[in-house]
């Protein structure tokens, strides 16, 4: 006991320093959501499970519950959106009841790991098979498209970001309903490109790009970005378009995984048509 007191009186300076420093950093983390997300991220880089335990302990930061609540509420609201429902357009059905047939289910998830500075970027989410996530589902955030689920474990899934050389997202220029494919050239995390947009379309800077109707993964009309610049290739009738992405990939924290309930039916039909 005396040794303990002696230890404290001898090292009071260092202990006081540690206490004040820890308190400051605690305040900083508690205050700033951005730092918080990164703090949790770096501690999670070791393994997803350590992260889970850790965030369980730091639950009292409060921010977590609030965010989660908002995210799941968002998912719930999206479930009720018109976009989530497919309509049987025909002479018989004239009533468009939103509760008629649901096509998309949104599962809220937290981004546990994320990269933007590599050529092929991936995200890790804290939802997996147990939460109903499967391969090939779309991932979107409140700002726009994020990526496509590539691998699923029990409680986690790995998402191929839009910032990936294999990512090919069917998109459309909202104003003209002109379909195209969005790819990433690896330049920076803010921009992607659309190739071979027919030059007869009167493109303008700022035109909104949304996900197209030809995608069996993404719901139609999800924000992707806006046109930043476009150039005509000499001797060609196409534009190469640079798109400013609407999603800030550096700041992703909560996202939605989109389950298309009619995807299987659609792809099955398309395959059988191809086989003919």
């Amino acid at each position, binding site marked *: 006991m005396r040794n303990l007191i002696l230890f404290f009186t001898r090292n009071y300076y260092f202990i006081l*320093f540690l206490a004040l420093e820890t308190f400051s950093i605690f305040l900083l983390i508690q205050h700033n959501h951005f730092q918080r997300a990164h703090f949790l991220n770096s501690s999670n880089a070791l393994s997803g499970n350590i992260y889970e335990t850790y965030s369980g302990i730091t639950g009292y930061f409060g921010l977590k519950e609030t965010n989660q609540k908002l995210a799941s509420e968002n998912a719930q609201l999206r479930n009720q959106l018109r976009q989530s429902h497919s309509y049987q357009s025909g002479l018989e059905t004239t009533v468009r009841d939103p509760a008629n047939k649901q096509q998309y289910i949104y599962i809220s998830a937290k981004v546990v790991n994320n990269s933007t500075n590599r050529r092929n970027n991936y995200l890790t989410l804290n939802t997996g098979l147990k939460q109903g996530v499967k391969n090939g589902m779309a991932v979107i955030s409140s700002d726009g498209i994020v990526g496509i689920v590539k691998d699923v474990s029990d409680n986690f899934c790995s998402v191929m970001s839009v910032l990936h050389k294999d990512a090919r997202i069917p998109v459309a220029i909202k104003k003209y309903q002109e379909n195209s494919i969005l790819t990433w050239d690896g330049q920076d995390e803010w921009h992607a490109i659309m190739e071979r947009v027919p030059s007869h379309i009167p493109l303008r800077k700022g035109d909104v790009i949304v996900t197209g109707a030809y995608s069996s993964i993404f719901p139609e009309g999800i924000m992707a970005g806006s046109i930043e610049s476009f150039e005509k290739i000499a001797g060609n009738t196409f534009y190469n378009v640079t798109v400013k992405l609407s999603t800030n990939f550096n700041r992703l924290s909560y996202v939605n995984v989109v389950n298309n309930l009619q995807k299987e039916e659609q792809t099955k039909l398309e395959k059988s048509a191809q086989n003919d």
Partner: protein
Amino acid sequence: MISDVIKNSIRFIFLVLFQVLILNNIQLSGYLNPFLYVLFILMLPFQTPKWLVLILAFIVGISVDMFSDTGGLHAAASVLMAFLRDPILRLISPREGYDPVQSPTIQQFGFGWFFSYAGVLIFAHHCTLFYLEAFYFTGFFSTLFRVILSSLFSLMLVFISQFFFSNPKS
């Protein structure tokens, strides 16, 4: 002693207000953010107890934080800087030691001494501040660039202010 307390209190209030009202609004470029309030920690008299330096640094940091809405960012950087103050002072102490009632000033100890004293502490402070702010090391060199430029700028301001805060005779 009492006059020291009053003098440092006034300096505290002046520096915090000057920092949050004027310097924080200066946008020279993304790379230049001077932090003159560290001058308060630099200029505490030698006789200030070590633990008091830590606590005062924490208070000055948290005051700036409160105004600039940064949680405990400045407090963390200031406390680390205050912690380093004592070892640095001991490392570069002149042969005859310090006079406890005095403050570390450029007039007293000369340009070279003050440059190494303020330079090291300001660099440590800015390093902590900018890396905590960025919070990861992906932009390591651009952050380092910010640290170096801002440190030089703060150091320059500290040197200029030396001629305002202390009278040359003492």
